[in-house]
């Protein structure tokens, strides 16, 4: 348990069994009144934010978050299935939780999954992933300028802008944090 005086920005706490994070914190003590700890709190599952004020006598539940290493295994309908690197237990992460990151998940990819109790909350991918260009207009030979971009598609249909010299069959590195082209890994 935390005391109200332990609260601070960035602290993860548990409210009604749900993992939450304090995104804004303010110490307040009106007039001759008691110390109050005013927080803006984000629910880490729903993403909703709300205000909550704690009195100094209140106790707040700690939030135990654990991150574990997993390997991407296969797709099962809307779920992406990963296996625990130590126990080989499967974790199913749905489309919604993955968001845009699902576009950059490749076979045998090593990922970290963040759990609250047994519930997966978040996934982190390697910063760069190598993927093959499935479709793009033919490149202009000799034009290695990287500031002129053209549309391309990855095998999963993800659309990405690539420099003009990239051809179908080339392998490129994509920055999974931004979803943008980083550089060319190898020619097709």
């Amino acid at each position, binding site marked *: 348990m935390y005391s109200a005086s332990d609260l601070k920005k960035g602290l993860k706490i548990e409210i009604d069994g749900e993992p939450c994070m304090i995104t804004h914190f*303010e*110490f307040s*003590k009106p007039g*001759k*009144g008691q110390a109050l700890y005013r927080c803006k709190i984000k629910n880490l599952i729903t993403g909703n934010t709300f205000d909550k*004020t704690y009195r100094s006598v209140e106790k707040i539940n700690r939030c135990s978050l654990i991150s574990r290493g997993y390997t991407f295994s296969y797709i099962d309908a809307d779920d992406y299935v990963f296996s625990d690197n130590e126990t080989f237990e499967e974790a199913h992460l749905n489309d919604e939780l993955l968001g845009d990151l699902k576009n950059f998940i490749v076979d045998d990819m090593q990922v970290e999954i963040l759990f609250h109790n047994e519930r997966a909350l978040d996934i982190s991918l390697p910063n760069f992933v190598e993927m093959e260009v499935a479709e793009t207009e033919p490149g202009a030979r000799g034009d290695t300028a990287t500031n002129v971009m053209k549309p391309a598609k990855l095998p999963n249909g993800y659309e990405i802008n690539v420099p003009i010299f990239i051809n179908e069959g080339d392998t490129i590195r994509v920055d999974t944090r931004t979803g943008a082209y980083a550089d060319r890994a190898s020619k097709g």
Partner: protein
Amino acid sequence: MAIDSIALRDAVMRSIRAFFDEHGFTEVETPIRLKIPCMELHIDAEPSGDHFLRTSPEIFHKQLLAAGHGKIFEVGKCFRRGELGPLHNPEYTMLEWYRANADYMDVLADTKALIQAVAAPDLRGGSVGGGGDPASVAEGRDLGSAEWEILTVSDAFTEFAGWNPVGNYAEDRFDMDLVEKVEPALKRMGGPVVLIDYPVEAAALSRRKPDNPLVAERWELYIDGIEIANAYSELTDPAEQRRRFEVCAERRKALGKETYPIDEAFIQALENMPPSGGVALGVDRLLMLVAGADSLDAVLPFR
């Protein structure tokens, strides 16, 4: 933008002393280390060896009033354990003054004149503009000419929180709504707002209003929603003061807080204390407002 808080503090301190000198007050010095801190429900004193650091100079000032010193002021450091935030620092500068044969309305007039003298535009221009960035002067509050609103606690709570705490006081609800509803409304109103006539349960060391025993003669000055000063028609009844200390000790015990013994010299002094009005004003917060800053960081360079 950086504010020249050193020059600003110097200018404000000079104008505070000039103000009280002009109005016939005596500057006094009272002990910073005390054997028995003044007991208040939610104020914790910082230990200092076998003494405590003062949380306020109040108990000594009242003894001076009882000894016949009718207009006194002191500016000095006070200490409150565990208070740290944008508007709090465990060590801070307090201005405290008392006027004998006066009440809380008389010292409200002092406060208004003081703020107007201290926060006059020429002072801001002269102090901040000298070493700092001219933009920060423009952002600073022109408190000298602002209108002062006077709002009873009863009206403020009824309007902004939907209930009247007078005669119907509940501490947690009062503190929560003050912070979450009333203070933000005072911030929206902007400028100086005096919240006046507190429920007697939140009287602290103020006396009851003669014509309404549910209300205490206490006010708090807010500027732009930030609490700047607290004032009382001082409680001068030794029996009532003793009873309040005893209740406070019980409640502190229940909260698991340490209790302090009753300071008999103080209680005895009340026997001879004339009716008085007193104000405690947070100098660091005032500097912060004059500078147009929103945190004490701007005016406490060593924090």
